[in-house]
């Protein structure tokens, strides 16, 4: 079956350059064609960050590099990057050109590693996978080739956890989401390596990955491979929570399960949950009359065109805490076959009384055609991307843009995970609903 895509919502393997950009003071070095980096930033990079965007060093593969190989050029660009770019970690990533031609990037990078330079490499030729998959590849490469050099044999730090969750920049709200995850996990007494973004500690934090007592994977499937790898490598047990916890119910459930698994202080955990829930539900209760009574119409059902972690998390929250019913749910992240059943199961028992239909389709042009054909008797909500603007208008739906391309929103630290994220969801949905009235 062909897998053509109208309206792409993720990038190729090289898209993991954005995972590197999300690490404080880390810089990708691309051994790739001249346009690759810009195209990736265009879809999944609102803003350059520290040394992303146009700052990213690149060999800009030319015809000569294809014919004669590009290893020499890679060497000079790496040399230059060390001189010109002030970074703590340099990550060489290959593109289609290098991977098809077969440059030995490992041995070129190895020369610098032998000199003790903070540099790693990963093969991320665009055709090899997408950025959900290659995010794992790049993280593993950093751990194996860099972090591992600093491990202190047998050292474990009590209560330290590594968090592997939403993928930086592929999730436009990654920074806010990771901040909230760190905040709530710290709230139950854990010490958190969040690894990416404003609340992380840069490469020094990465160096403590082997010391962690546990790994937490908060994602449907992407990132699970990292935890498995760390289990084999450092014997670190991992806990898998297969979606983003959004709102009071799911966040409390998440924290209790994590506490159970990690042996975090039960009383402290319950006290934290109590105080967070009190605040969370105070806001809900305070405005429940408005939500119940607003007479001009609020969405009654929602479509999702999201990655699996977002889709499950939002569906649970919208249904169980806001009473908006799931219409068809589309998973657009090219979920590998092996993980699809578990995701179906999540939707099958989305609440005690209800199951939701889920489909795995990467070609969102086809999804939009399907949605158009439904009868649209009631106002609905679309959780999707910038591609859904016209569709939403046509079927009389409100659109909350959660997936790339986000283009119609500028995202700083907005996040939708956790207690705070749950409240933000309500604000943003109603913001869009209320904004439709003249």
């Amino acid at each position: 079956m062909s897998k053509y895509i109208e309206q792409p919502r993720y990038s190729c393997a090289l898209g993991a350059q954005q995972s590197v950009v999300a690490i404080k003071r880390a810089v990708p070095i691309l051994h790739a064609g001249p346009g690759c980096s810009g195209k990736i930033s265009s879809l999944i990079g609102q803003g350059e960050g520290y040394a992303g965007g146009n700052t990213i060093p690149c060999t800009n593969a030319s015809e000569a590099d294809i014919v004669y190989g590009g290893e020499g050029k890679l060497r000079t660009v790496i040399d230059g990057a060390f001189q010109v770019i002030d970074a703590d970690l340099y990550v060489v990533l290959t593109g289609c050109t290098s991977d098809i031609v077969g440059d030995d990037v490992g041995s070129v990078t190895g020369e610098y590693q032998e000199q003790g330079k903070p540099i790693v490499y990963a093969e991320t030729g665009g055709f090899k996978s997408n950025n959900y998959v290659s995010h794992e590849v790049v993280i593993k490469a950093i751990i194996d080739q860099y972090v591992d050099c600093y491990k202190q044999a047998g050292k474990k730090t009590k209560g330290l956890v590594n968090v592997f969750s939403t993928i930086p920049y592929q999730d436009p709200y990654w920074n806010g989401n990771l901040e909230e995850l760190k905040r709530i996990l710290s709230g139950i007494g854990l010490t958190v390596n969040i690894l990416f973004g404003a609340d992380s500690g840069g490469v020094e934090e990465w160096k403590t990955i082997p010391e962690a007592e546990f790994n937490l994977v908060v994602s449907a499937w992407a990132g699970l491979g990292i935890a498995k790898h760390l289990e084999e490598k450092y014997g670190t047990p991992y806990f898998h929570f297969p979606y983003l916890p959004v709102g009071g119910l799911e966040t409390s459930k998440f924290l209790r399960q994590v506490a159970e698994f990690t042996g975090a202080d039960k009383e402290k955990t319950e006290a934290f949950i109590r105080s967070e829930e009190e605040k969370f539900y105070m806001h809900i209760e305070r405005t429940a009359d408005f939500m119940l009574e607003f007479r001009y119409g609020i969405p009654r059902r929602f479509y999702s065109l999201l990655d699996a972690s977002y889709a499950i998390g939002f569906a649970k929250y919208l249904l169980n805490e806001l009473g908006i019913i799931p219409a068809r749910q589309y998973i657009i992240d090219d979920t590998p076959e092996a993980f699809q059943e578990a995701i179906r199961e999540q939707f099958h028992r989305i609440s005690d009384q209800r199951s939701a239909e889920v489909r795995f389709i990467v070609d969102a042009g086809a999804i939009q055609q399907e949605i158009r054909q439904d009868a649209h008797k009631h106002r609905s909500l679309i959780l999707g991307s910038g591609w859904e603007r016209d569709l939403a208008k046509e079927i009389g739906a409100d659109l909350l843009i959660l997936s790339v391309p986000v283009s119609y929103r500028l995202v700083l630290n907005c996040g939708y995970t956790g207690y705070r994220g749950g409240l933000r969801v309500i604000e943003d949905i109603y913001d869009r609903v209320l904004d439709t009235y003249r």
Partner: protein
Amino acid sequence: MSVISLKEPEVAIREVRLGSITGFEGTAGELVQCARTGKLQDNARQFSQCMGCSSGNAFCQLSMIQDAVVVNHAPVGCAGDVFGFNFVYRVGQMERNLPPVIGRYFNTNIEEQDTIFGATQKLEDTIREAYTRVKPKAIFITTSCASGIIGDDVEGVANALTEELGIPVVACFCEGFKSKIWTTGFDSAYHAIVRKIVKPPLKKSNKVNIINFWGSHIFDDLLKPLGYEPDYIVPFSTVGQLERISEAVATIQVCPTLGSYLGAALEQVYGVPEIKAPPAYGLRGTDNWLRELGRVLDREDQIETLINKEHARVLPLLGDYRKQLEGKTAYITAGAAHGHALIALLRELGMTVQGAAIFHHDPLYDNGDTASDALAHAVNTYGDIANYNVCNKQAYELVNILNRVRPDIMIARHGGMTLWGAKLGIPTLLIGDEHFSFGYQGLLNYAERILETLDNKEFVTNLAKHSTMPYTKWWLEQNPFHFLGRNVHVEVY
């Protein structure tokens, strides 16, 4: 002059066709001199940052033809830029009072096994599906590094599907690795259009082709009183409209870097004369350009009247602006041709241009006519420009230079560069609409915006105070051209 051959599926890259370069340091006069005497040599860089590629620029021109579809034959990452163009397309629809539609773009999603077995079947399936979904009047295929290296017969698929579907299915070859000059992608798109869409003229029309991006419709007021109708191409045109651009009386380019190939092809193949004077930027530039337009359109008297009228209107206002801008310093970064125009324009306003980083240099355009040399025009009219750097979006060179030069204002024409002015506390101006500064009124528009920008220092001053700098102290102390011209690797030219 490059000879246009519509028999070849691919157009030769600019490096080969025009002898274009991407690395140079010196004065603008020296560059013009070198180019004229055939002594122009490219300087490669030993260290480089990511650039753009042809496929993006080809897509830029093909993606907004209202009834066409683009199939990008590539891994999914290559389609990362399509939403950006869709956004531009939709903004343009608002400006033109067109109904909202999304661009219909498909990616063939080349994967690992395809690099071994080939992906032509995928390409065929995608084209058929695109046709079924959209029923377009034409389908363009843009290629990629991957499709090029694995050797897919894209031209063969295009021809077979043209037969099968009964609409033009046109291959546009724009593999990123082929050229360091991403504007080569414009040439690829235009080659595809002239080769497979444009039909031989049946009659002469009263239309004037305007090769532009998606600028405002400023040519209406100029051409309609002269009895001509502007035909803005290629974005926002239709396939039917493009079929007939061979019937126009003339072709205008807002930027010869953009339209070089299309203008020359229409003249060489179909005898549509191209206005060869550099585009109308600055007072004298506009005078020249208008007179050339009057000559080609046979409206010389009316043009002289217009020039006199506009001078009377604009000169007093210009005098005021000049007084305010006298002695202010500027640094420019932009693509070629438009960058040259900006240099002329700033000097017309009495400003001192301290230098420029221009993305590439074409010694001559496809028409082979020295009259079109915008940089020579700027040098001859306003004098030489020191610190003229040909630099394909290498931010590290720009930061180094800005840090030394510290102009009163930095003027950028493309995204990705403004940050570096602002981080150093230098007011920075980016103007997207290339028509904004066109002609006499454009000069006034620009002056106004420069004054506004110079006046608004609060944001950049505060940003500079709180910014980090990813460039090393060592680098900022080096000669900005430290890495230029030291490349020891084999080049194609």
